[in-house]
């Protein structure tokens, strides 16, 4: 190749601010621009053709097989019983649409709790593997190897089986006369909710913002003057004192809805069912094993010189970890962590094996009762896509925010 046929994209004055000159397309296979366009049109065409063919074929076959289609079933009366629901549900009056919404909420209930708990447990175990305490490091290592090597479905069935061996309600283990553990789940007393509690909660939320603002002001003051105003008395007042005063001003109402054994089961109080419990424990312990490895690798990815430099500046080991090592480790940890959060959410669809009614379970029942298989599966896929994309977006935003710390 001679010098005269240099890449035209690189021709023109270097470092100039103006846009690259418009290029003409040469009708020759040796023109890379033309080649790119041809390939891309071809690939888009093949994909679109395949989708077109599949959609058309499906529609034709559905018609040939006399299968009714459409989403009209969502407004029909469901009639299917649902065990756990966060919003009101009555099989005789509620629709399939509401039933599926309950499934979505149940999926979110187990996913959100699972992500929070798995992060906490995984971080503890990941740090534990690096511990200088031999026993802690070994136990953490065994945990990781054992739990990530067994299929999660087996683990779920194990936990569900284990929870079923708990005693019957009449012989339940109990803590006082308030908390009961039986094969019907954990029964706990619930606060009988009154307006006073709402106001106290509002005061607490305001207190959180107030404390954060005070802390920021204190930090600014410290940076300017070297004197740090005390934070904790203000925090205590805003978070504890004010809400308590608000509650007292409303007459300090306090009654508990305590579970009582009546008939077959406990009535009243709050419940964590064995199905939810088995699913949550199974997902958390399984995912925590992966998160532990991510946390460990993230910490080890920070050069030892960083902790040594922190020590040389006089930071204690805990401070060094919190202020120097972890912020740098986070940049390594966050991207794979996102994948684990998505995995946990998707694995929650195994709920169907332990009788927890998540969106897949209710969606499957719906498509079975109505016969709308394609619509039902499309709905389930749309729900998971929406949840997963939300998690991805949030984690990408958080990742970008952490990356900015780099100097």
């Amino acid at each position, binding site marked *: 190749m001679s010098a005269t046929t240099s890449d035209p994209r690189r021709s023109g004055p270097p470092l100039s601010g103006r846009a690259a000159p418009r290029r003409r397309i040469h009708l020759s296979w040796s023109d890379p621009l033309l080649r790119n366009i041809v390939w891309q049109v071809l690939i888009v065409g093949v994909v679109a053709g395949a989708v077109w063919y599949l959609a058309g074929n499906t529609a034709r076959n559905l018609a040939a097989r006399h*299968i009714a289609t459409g989403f009209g079933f969502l407004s029909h009366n469901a009639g299917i019983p649902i065990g756990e629901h966060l919003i009101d549900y009555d099989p005789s009056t509620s629709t399939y649409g509401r039933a599926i919404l309950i499934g979505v909420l149940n999926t979110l209930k187990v996913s959100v709790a699972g992500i929070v708990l798995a992060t906490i447990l995984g971080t503890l175990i990941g740090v534990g593997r690096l511990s200088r305490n031999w026993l802690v490091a070994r136990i953490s290592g065994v945990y990781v190897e054992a739990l990530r090597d067994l299929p999660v479905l087996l683990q779920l*069935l194990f936990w569900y089986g284990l929870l079923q061996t708990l005693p019957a309600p009449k012989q339940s283990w109990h803590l006082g006369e308030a908390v009961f553990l039986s094969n019907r789940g954990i029964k706990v007393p619930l606060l009988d909710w009154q307006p006073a509690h709402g106001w106290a909660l509002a005061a607490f939320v305001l207190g959180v913002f107030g404390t954060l603002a005070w802390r920021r002001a204190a930090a600014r003051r410290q940076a300017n003057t070297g004197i740090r105003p005390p934070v904790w008395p203000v925090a205590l007042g805003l978070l504890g004192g004010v809400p308590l005063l608000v509650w007292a001003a409303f007459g300090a109402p306090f009654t508990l809805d305590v579970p009582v054994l009546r008939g077959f*089961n406990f009535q009243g109080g709050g419940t964590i069912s064995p199905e939810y419990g088995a699913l949550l424990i199974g997902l958390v312990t399984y995912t925590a094993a992966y998160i532990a490895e991510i946390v460990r690798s993230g910490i080890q990815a920070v050069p030892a010189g960083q902790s040594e430099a922190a020590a040389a500046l006089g930071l204690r080991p805990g401070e060094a970890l919190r202020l120097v090592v972890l912020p740098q480790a986070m940049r390594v940890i966050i991207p794979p962590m996102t994948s684990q959060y998505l995995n946990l959410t998707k694995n929650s669809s195994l709920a169907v094996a332990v009788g927890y009614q998540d969106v897949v379970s209710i969606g*499957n*029942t719906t498509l079975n009762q109505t016969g709308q298989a394609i619509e039902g599966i499309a709905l389930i896929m749309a729900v998971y896509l929406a949840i997963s994309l939300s998690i991805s977006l949030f984690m990408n935003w958080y990742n970008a925010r952490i990356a900015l710390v780099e100097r």
Partner: protein
Amino acid sequence: MFRLTSVLGALVAGALLSGGAARADGSGSATIDAIKARGQLVCGVGGSVPGFALPDSQGVMRGLDADFCRAVAAATLGDATRVKFVPTTTTNRFTALQSGEVDLLVRTTTWTLGREANLGLLFAGVNYYDGTGFMVKKALGVKSAKELDGATICIQPGTSTELAVGDFFRVNKLKFTPILIADLPELRNAFLSGRCDAYSTDGSQLAGFRATQPNKDDLVLLPETISKEPLGMMVRKGDDKFFDLVRWTHFAELIAEEAGVTSRNIDSFADTKLPELRRLLGLEGDMGKALGVDNRFAYNVVKQVGNAGENWDRSMTALGVPRGINALWNKGGLQYAPPMR
């Protein structure tokens, strides 16, 4: 997840299959032609339901539903052994039939209007007149389903039981907590371990389940039957010839029982003068040919599998289930076949 992928797979397979239109050659039925070309009937069954379809210690599928699959194979191919049994769950059974994964679905499936109108499937007959019942442990001390207020009840999802139990509790203004597990052995474990107070499904399945339990005296069937559950065999809509064949396979079993023809004595009728029997055995008329199969289809069904009464005894009497309303019409039951002529 596994269920999702299997449903999806079935859907894609359905989309890729050629349409169900009948081809010009052969029997005039795409399904019968496909079975003959394959040399095998693919039959969707339950696979874990005692009395209906459950493999024995040799791995041979046994039960009323399994024997009906064999009867259709005998009618179509002349050989009752040429059946491939495909175990299906309550939630994937219809998709399996719709997509063409199975030719015939004989899986304790209740005949309802909704299913026939929406699914693109047809019921060809009723091989068991059943009803939803409840089973509890004797220790619970419950004598009637109306005492189950507040109880936790184990049910398979996607079944008509699910709706029947909901209706029963609604009508009687009682409350219950459902535990829905698709996998039958898992569901039964949940009941046996005490997670549920009661287990609800078709009475026949409860009886079959109870009979296979080592501690069967601790389990009690409650007296109420809360719904009508006619269990039938299903085919795809749009292949009327195959529908006819499946329906008349069932009728042939009933006609044989009514006439006293069994798998053991059928050859002694070879020189019978009775016209109805001569048509049944394929000695007279073109009954089989009209259905697109051999004229001796009914002979093959009865000879190789048995008449309706024999099939019942083999599967149900062995479990201690009385025949009740499933007897022939002239013995106080509901089973009635139109004349074969």
